[in-house]
């Protein structure tokens, strides 16, 4: 897996890694990807993909308003909140 760039993929995954972690995880993932290469020998010509073992289509319910969590309940586990909203760092200057 010469083209597996752990630094780039970790950034896509939004996970900050220390240089030491990058080195260790990168080596382990290279090993695992080597094993996964095995799949290339399976003949999948004309085979449809399976996303779910029992695909159900168009699962709908009547569009009726129901009670849900209160604002206070929804914010109860938030690391930071104010004025009934989640607090995040500034996005725009």
């Amino acid at each position, binding site marked *: 897996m010469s083209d*597996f760039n*752990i630094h780039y*993929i*970790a*950034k*896509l*995954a*939004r*996970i*900050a*890694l*220390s240089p030491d*972690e990058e080195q*260790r*995880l990168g080596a*382990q*993932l290279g*090993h*695992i*990807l080597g*094993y*996964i290469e*095995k*799949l*290339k020998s*399976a003949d*999948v010509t004309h*085979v*449809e*993909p*399976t*996303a*779910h*073992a*029992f695909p*159900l289509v168009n*699962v709908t*319910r009547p569009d009726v308003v129901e009670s849900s*969590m209160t604002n206070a*309940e*929804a914010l*109860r*586990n*938030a*690391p*930071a909140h104010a004025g009934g909203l*989640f607090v*995040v*760092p*500034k*996005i725009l200057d």
Partner: protein
Amino acid sequence: MLHRLTISELTRRIARRECSAVEALDACLAQIDRVDGQIKAFLSVDRDDARAQAVAADKEVAAGGSAVGKPLLGVPIALKDVLAHKGQPLNCGSRILGKFVSPYDATVVTQLKDAGAVVFGRLNMDEFAMGSSTENSAFQTTLNPWDTTRIPGGSSGGCAASVSAGECFASIGSDTGGSIRQPAALCGCVGVKPTYGRVSRFGLVAFASSLDQIGPFTRDVRDAALLTQVLSGYDRRDSTSIPQAVPSYVGSLTGDLRGMKIGLVKEFMVGGLDPEVDAAVTAAVRQIQSLGAEVVEVSLPHSEYAVATYYIIATAEASSNLARFDGIRYGARVDGADPMELNSRTRGAGLGPEVKRRIILGTYVLSSGYYDAYYLRAQKVRTLIRNDFLKAFEKVDAIVSPTTPTAAFKVGEKAADPLQMYLSDIFTISCNLSGICGMSVPCGFTASPKLPIGLQILGKPFGEETMFRLAHAYEQSTPWHREWCPQSNLANAS
């Protein structure tokens, strides 16, 4: 020895007023005090909440509440730390959830409470159900009650260890690639992964949504059938739950295997299997034959691809599902200059190495340029694996195999080599990829040290009745499920 009863025995005693729900709970709590310092199955127990439920159950018994309307009235049942229980902590064995408290009950918790159960405790697990030993828990490693130098299996290791150590009468876990069946086998109890869609996943923190299924750990097959019956059924809050009537699983336990056809998988009879596991499973197959079932060979030609397929599909789904742990709406947070830095730092600090490995692998197999080569190809191989099973089930009613290639391994033995750990799931993984049902029942012990061995029974989609009938007939004709781990193992509990 109240804490050693099966659910059937306990509910009979409670109905006859020979013991109370409070006494049953106290027996569990006393056993937890005696052994959990050593076993480390529980992350926490809210004793006051549990006692309030037990007192309420006793009031219902006094008012004439019967086992018919409430089949679990007064039975203490513990939960894996991945299921939402209103007002209780939920951590998934991870630091990233911080001091999270569940705002609602999972559907299975509602079902247990409606059936009269006393739902209590948070059981240890590999972080986000990723692992086969509980060594990936951010909090503690649970130990095997049969040998405390060994792992209990995983990811639902706390569920299996607690039932086998007599700390609860049953527990509820989740199985994505073997996380119920493997620890059940290694700790010597019964574990069931129902058919995909049979049990609602509402309130189960998702790992891989197309593979996850909730199921019970019990001391015998009758209890497993009863609990699966309570947990099964359509739930409009889970759009993958299947609207199909739930038959009487307990009613299917006839003890009669005449006319039943059992498959042995040709591809599973290859190297790598521990000789004692092989001997125990071979003896179990002979026993099943002697009970009147016919045994034939079946082929699952794409089995060799199952582990690779699983580690693409499960990690891809996990990378998407675990994106919700972003440090913004709940859980722990590490601040950053902007939201992206906050996300990355929070996840870097809050997630353990195995979860990071799998999210990164899943992100890679879904990333632009690699999707077709990995994810789409794996989904196609999944079709081949599933078709193999459907074809085999045209010939047989159930398939039997070892649950695991070896008995419980030592703490630390596979911790440094993730791929070796993944390969220990070789017999359990294809069941989840195919969406069929499966379970593990005790089928013997290794000689020295004495460690449990599990027999895996795989059934057709919605074939739970046949699976339970086979498991029950086998169990009732063997002594394994009546054996207890030596108390001397637990004697030096702190």
